């Protein structure tokens, strides 16, 4: 499907994918890549400009009501009524989805327990912390036992501890309720930790789609990272070497060198640098992570922010 906004902005461009029942599907990309637009189309809030999408077998344009009944959503920005209590927010949701009193009471109890908010259920939401609000939203997304749960950047703006907690809840939901989860994120470790399958989207296009380990195999290479003086000189020289698969320069002083069996290549790199009169400040060897795959595919240059530590975080990650 494709979505072009008024004014000609192409938010997503011929995006096509398939999510299996019961899996956690990660939709990974930087801000502005088209993740939220995709979620809005799949949840019937926006219409695609062209193409089609089916959720649980229902067409999002022709059968929006059936789609809405089968899905739950946790939006990127909070969507709670903070003048109601946690329980009232859940009750509101349950009634909007036509649940009767017995179902409502049983389900509210279950989902509150699932996210550990039973004690605070009767407090006004405006007195909740950011992490508690997110947990309440997760609980609400599950209230009406949807078949598919959309989580749009579920841990954006949360501290590390709350983030871990949310991850645990997400895995638990998937395991205990069997709900299919469609997760968008720009945190690579989040996709790696949670998702069974990952699509990488950049500038409205899907550029890779596989399991996290499949994506890493795709590279099949180790990464030597080094920081040095005169990196440009070193890059030119490395490009001429047969054993170097790829070199990426980022910042003004950091290089990623993609090689096979990196253990044996580190001394070669150092030797080459010495010959060229390039001073190596630090060097490290790593097996590829999803992060490297991402950088490799999108060509986004991560930057080093904290001097000595090699900055593996792409710019859009460091905000939170």
């Amino acid at each position: 499907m494709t979505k072009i906004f008024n004014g000609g902005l192409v938010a997503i461009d011929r995006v096509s994918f398939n999510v299996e029942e019961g899996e956690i599907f990660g939709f990974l990309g930087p801000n502005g890549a088209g993740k939220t637009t995709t979620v809005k189309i799949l949840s019937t809030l926006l219409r695609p400009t062209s193409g089609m999408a089916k959720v649980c077998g229902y067409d999002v344009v022709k059968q929006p009501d059936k789609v809405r009944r089968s899905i739950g959503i946790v939006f990127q920005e909070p969507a709670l009524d903070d003048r109601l209590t946690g329980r009232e927010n859940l009750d509101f949701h349950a009634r909007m989805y036509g649940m009767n009193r017995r179902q409502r009471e049983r389900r509210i109890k279950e989902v509150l327990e699932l996210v550990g908010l039973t004690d605070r259920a009767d407090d006004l939401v405006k007195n909740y912390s950011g992490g508690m609000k997110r947990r309440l939203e997760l609980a609400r997304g599950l209230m009406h036992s949807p078949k598919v749960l959309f989580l749009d950047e579920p841990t954006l703006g949360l501290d590390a501890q709350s983030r871990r907690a949310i991850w645990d809840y997400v895995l638990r939901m998937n395991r205990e309720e069997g709900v299919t989860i469609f997760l968008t994120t720009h945190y690579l470790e989040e996709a790696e930790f949670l998702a069974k399958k990952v699509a990488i989207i950049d500038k409205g296009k899907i550029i890779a789609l596989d399991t996290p380990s499949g994506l890493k195999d795709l590279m099949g290479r180790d990464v030597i990272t080094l920081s040095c003086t005169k990196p440009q000189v070193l890059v030119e020289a490395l490009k001429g070497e047969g054993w170097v698969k790829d070199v990426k320069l980022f910042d003004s002083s950091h290089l990623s060198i993609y090689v096979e069996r990196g253990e044996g290549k580190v001394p070669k790199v150092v030797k080459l640098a010495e010959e060229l009169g390039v001073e190596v400040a630090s060097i490290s060897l790593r097996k590829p992570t999803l992060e490297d795959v991402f950088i490799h595919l999108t060509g986004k240059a991560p930057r080093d922010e904290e001097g000595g530590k090699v900055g593996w975080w792409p710019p859009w990650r460091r905000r939170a």
Partner: protein
Amino acid sequence: MTLQAVYVLWLREVKRLVRARSRLIANLIQPLLILAILGFGLSYAKLPGLRLSYLDFLAPGMVIVAVALSSMTSGVSVIWDRQFGFLKEVLVAPVSRLSIVVGKALGGSTVATLQGLAILAVSVLLGVQINILGLLPGLTFILLTSIFAVGLGLIIASKVNDFEGFGLIMNLLVFPLILLSTAFFPLESAPNWMKGVIYLDPLTYAVDGLRGAIVGGSAMPLTLDLTILSGLCALTMLLGAYLFGKCEI
């Protein structure tokens, strides 16, 4: 339309409005201050077309002002819902847009009507003579006014996306509507050119109708007031529902 959804939207609206107690009281104090100060301060006023004491004349007007302001605020609160994200939760539910608008309108007008009745009760305490038999038709006018104003609020909300724009609308649109509604002076005492504008003001028919029903002395026949106000009511609600249905987030 889903009744349970209408009910829960109504419930939410009422809960929110009742919990914002300070605003609830502020909404009452303003019209009551005007009623007491102007009502007594102008008690010797002689105006063409003023067949009642000024206090009696002013009371229905202040009831309508309170009802209209409170209902409009509730219609406009869609802006707040959008700003704070809650609107998405509502729009993504398997519920028709019409149910959402009806639930919201009923919630807003419930609270507004209670506020209007509170003003009416206080004005009786201040010495306003009201016709008991006129209470039922009076209540009809109050309800219609509140539904009209919620609809107007929804229309404004679909066109205005921020708080600043909302303030501007309140000053440029709502304030003149209130001043021109014959709440403060009789239709007969206005110059002819102004009468034309007064006839265009929807609140004129609300004020005139309620006045005719509870204290007497309306400028137009009640059936005319009722017909025009009902028509306007239907118009703003339909337009409000239509615009709300189209709103994207």
